[in-house]
């Protein structure tokens, strides 16, 4: 479309942007992560993950992120299937309902969950109205998972919805003609064909859920620390950039691992096709 010179010229703004705000900060993080206070190479800060109970926080983060990803996936599939089958007018309204929360600041909507789940919150007030015992919901792992699912569900719905709409209706008709029931059509045809969408959805939910510190801070009451909270506190309260960066690098390793896994699945699936 463009000749070589124009292409380079058009690419320059992004390269400058990426260099200044992605590459240099990344180098800084790794640099701080693998040095000590005297700027000598050292892995001592990385090793801290095995002390101070930080490993437990990392495990908890991975566990909660996994649960939320699975819940998002289970919620999204039926919804997206219904959306693709519905008339166009209806589906616009439903999908709008799912995108609408994205227009609101996630900090505010998470704070709203606080007032819903609190001891004297909306749910407990309704329970009390019917003479039922109050539930302890806020400051639990369940509350954090709920916050993650609420905040990140649209990121699962959107890619999944797009891949599902791209599936040729004639393939589904062919499956039915050949005698497959609904369940078989779903497992043998829709699922494999929608896998790329599901995989990008998984990545887009899992990574922010793994790194979040706002949701766990607001809905965990400061009692449940995820790895994101620890990194945040290392920077703000402890004023220890080396430890904070070392932990960030470790977290990045997990994110890269996640991406390698998902692209591997993506690839192996593509090979099946041909």
């Amino acid at each position: 479309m463009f000749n070589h010179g124009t292409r380079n010229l058009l690419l320059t703004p992004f390269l400058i942007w990426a260099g200044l705000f992605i590459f240099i900060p990344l180098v800084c993080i790794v640099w701080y992560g693998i040095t000590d206070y005297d700027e000598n190479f050292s892995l001592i800060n990385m090793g801290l993950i095995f002390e101070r109970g930080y490993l437990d926080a990392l495990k908890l983060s991975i566990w909660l992120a996994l649960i939320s990803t699975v819940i998002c996936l289970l919620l999204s599939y039926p919804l997206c299937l219904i959306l693709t089958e519905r008339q166009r007018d209806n589906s616009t309204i439903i999908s709008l309902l799912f995108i609408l929360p994205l227009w609101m600041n996630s900090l505010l909507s998470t704070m709203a969950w606080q007032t819903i789940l609190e001891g004297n919150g909306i749910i407990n007030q309704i329970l009390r109205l019917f003479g039922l015992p109050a539930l302890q919901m806020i400051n639990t792992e369940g509350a954090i998972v709920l916050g993650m699912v609420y905040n990140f569900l649209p990121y699962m719905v959107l890619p999944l919805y797009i891949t599902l709409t791209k599936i040729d209706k004639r393939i589904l008709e062919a499956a039915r003609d050949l005698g497959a029931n609904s369940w078989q059509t779903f497992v043998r045809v829709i699922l494999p064909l929608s896998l790329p969408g599901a995989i990008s959805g998984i990545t887009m939910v899992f990574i922010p859920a793994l790194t979040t510190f706002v949701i766990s801070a607001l809905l965990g009451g400061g009692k449940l620390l995820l790895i994101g909270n620890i990194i945040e506190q290392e920077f703000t309260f402890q004023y220890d950039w080396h430890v904070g960066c070392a932990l960030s690098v470790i977290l990045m390793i997990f994110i890269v691992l996640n991406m390698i896994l998902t692209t591997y699945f993506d690839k192996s699936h593509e090979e099946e096709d041909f």
Partner: protein
Amino acid sequence: MNKLKIFALLLVSLLAFGAAGCGGVGDKDKQVVYVYSWGDYVDPEVLRIFEKETGIHVILDEFDTNESMYPRVAEGAVHYDVICPSDYMVQKLINNDLIQPLDFTKLENAKKYIGEEFFKQAETFDPGNKYSVPYCWGTVGIVYDKTKVTDPVDSWNILWNEKYAGQILMQDSARDAMMIPLKLMGKSLNETDKDVLAEAQAMLKKQKPLVQAYVIDEVKEKLINSEASMGVVFSGDAVIITAQNPNMDFAIPKEGTNVWIDGWVITKDAQNVENAHKFIDFMCRPDIAVKNFDYLGYSTPNTAVYDLEEDEAVKNSPIAFPSPEVYKNQETYKYLNNQMDEYYNNLWMQVKVD
């Protein structure tokens, strides 16, 4: 500042953007003062009056803990002129050469109206009173719901009472959290013995299942809404909570507490030293101090405020105007040293991670 070296490129570009964003050349003549203070710690009307009277524009930024304020000042990313840290943080700033001695010839109101006993108490962290002017002071105690807490609230012990599991709010800051078990053990809140500190940490870990949440500013809202039965609260917040929720009362445990003092200081690299002095002295003027006092609820070291205060209920409030016995023999936080600071923070982190 070797740290900053690798950021050089980033900073240069940011500064270039910053300079471009700072408006026209005409602004050069405009008088400003950059203030960095606690969230909601100055009556906004006071700032308007200051700007009107002096023509100095106040640019106010806010922080929520001493620990989060320090890195920003130390890194010098933003050049603040005036900051309002607490006692031990004033000392840390002095020790690390980040603030400058004040010129008291420019602080007539401070000399005249700030009570002598407060300057004396401030000597524990600012020897010779060279660097800071006390702005607010107070204690830490327990706000509790009279209708739900049936036991007498006179000891920090009640925070370990299993009867109130899930109803207890604790402060989410290393020094304030550690202070409580240390006082229960009859130790100093500036303890540096690692065995004693480990014991205090163990007590906090044991308490954790009973705690509803570790909070900072949210404590006010939660207690006003009766979300918990008791919470560890700064005396100024206690004034506001007890005023808005009549079920709540405030008690200072018999084992002792932290008498804290927040003071105004001027940074070492302040660009507007003259204006900074004007701002601090303005804050000490009696009519202004009363406005801030009414707005904040925090006790003031300003001796003129009691006579100017019109609300009799506030005047008689033992929380707002405590009798001198309250702070007699009480300790104030001292800055220990960088290693000890880090040690405290780590102990506290482990309680939260546990």
